[in-house]
């Protein structure tokens, strides 16, 4: 009986302790987690380093990279179809000249499949979060303390 009452009362206490906590929700377009610098987001292509060897296209498990000619350049350069890309980093790992890299940018949504195909010129640009997310107001970092998780908010 004592055990039963404990098992009926105890959950109330635990739930109450959660009601007063700050929610874990991140209101995305207005807030955004700070992504570590080694994050595997969008590719950035260094056209000066790329020699068009095609290793990235061969190693890509999803066949999302094709080499396309770029006007005024000697070599073909990779074009990435983000509709197929699984962000596995294989192309970056096996690039013999370190021409490809991945940066902490993940705002890649588009309204059509054609927009998801990034030609080399577009890959060469370094995107800015400000432009992709004009609503962004705060950036968050997760901090684990002994007592709990805290989201530290910082104005952009």
């Amino acid at each position, binding site marked *: 009986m004592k055990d*039963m009452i*404990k*098992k*009926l009362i*105890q*959950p109330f*206490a*635990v*739930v109450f*302790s*959660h009601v007063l906590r700050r929610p*874990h929700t991140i209101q995305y377009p207005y807030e955004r987690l700070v*992504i*570590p610098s*080694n*994050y*595997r987001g969008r590719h950035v292509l260094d056209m000066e380093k790329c020699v068009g060897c095609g290793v990235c296209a*061969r*190693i*890509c*498990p*999803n066949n999302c990279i094709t080499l396309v000619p770029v006007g005024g350049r000697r070599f073909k350069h990779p074009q990435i179809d983000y509709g197929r890309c*699984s*962000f*596995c*980093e*294989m192309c970056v*790992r*096996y690039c013999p000249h370190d021409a490809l890299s*991945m940066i902490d940018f993940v705002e890649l949504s588009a309204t059509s499949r054609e927009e998801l195909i990034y030609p080399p010129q577009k890959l060469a640009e370094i995107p800015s979060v400000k432009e992709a997310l004009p609503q962004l107001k705060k950036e968050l970092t*997760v901090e*684990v*303390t*002994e*007592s*709990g*998780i805290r989201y530290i908010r910082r104005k952009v």
Partner: protein
Amino acid sequence: MSEEPSKRVMRISWGPQHPMSGQIRILVDTDGERVLNIIPDLGFTHRAIEKILENRNVVQGVVPVERMVMVDTANNALAYVRAVEELLGIEPPKRAQYIRVIICEVCRILSHLYGFGLGAESGGGYPAVFLWSTADREPFLDLMERITGTRWSYSFFVPGGVYRDFPDKIKDKFLKTLSYFEKRLETYRRAWFENKIFEARAKNVGVLKPEDAIRLGAAGPSLRSSGVSLDVRKNEPYEAYDEIDFKVVTLPEGDSYARLFARYLEMVESVKIIRQAIENMPSGPYRKSVSPFKRLPKGEAYARVEAARGELGVHIISDGGFKPYRVKITSPTLRNLYVLSQLPKISDILLADLPVIMYSFDPWYLDADR
């Protein structure tokens, strides 16, 4: 498949369009509330991963294999990578083995937190635990983000080691997260495992005796909660598990409650394993280079790994080409679904018990369908 066996029996299609079923259809023959027969109908997420792997070389192969179980990617990748390493005859460096153990155990925690939250929700009206556990995955995902570069499907294990080194400056944060997590585990126990109504719902429901569990081929915590001590980590120690002190969680009851509680206890063990692995991690190289553009040696290799849902086997057969000739993946969920369909004393089960039993097996249908 859809005809009803008789007028008296009502065949309910539990899924795939259903709030709790997931990507599966389970045909349930009922007589009133009483369940007469459970027929799983799989294949809604079949992606032919075995066929894809026949058309990818061994380095590329890690990527599709990981997509089998998104919450438990590391263990899946490890099974494949270990099979490849066995085939190539290479042994990863010691440091890589420890890093692999850490990441696999974090994945086990992530996976169990998810499955355990769903288990709480399956009892009905208790989604709070599910969202708490989802929230508590965040610090671990953050750590993984810092180590591997993504939150899941890491593509981090490569044949010959791990792709990046374990950043030593993260150790402190890791240990802090673990001690925080241990406190949270206590919260889950108090809120959920010691909840009278949940006990009433899950205890003595869907009991699986040890001999039945072995005969029907239950996998993972579902098997061990029936009192059978079969754990690949202990029986066939891989990576650094033979240098780490941990115990295999077994519970004697074999009911739904025990299956869920076994997952909880495994998380406690995982925390211990990670602590030891971080402390004892040797320094040194973390990767041996393996070229993806070389022919594989002729032969075969069968690697087994204890994934979060149970034993995962990858059998690679090579005929000496660039790509594996055949890859056979043995997934735990497929076996657990068979156990579900053949549960002994099925007539004791009521319709309301079905989600509880189902989620006590922690099914991941993508794993079953491959």
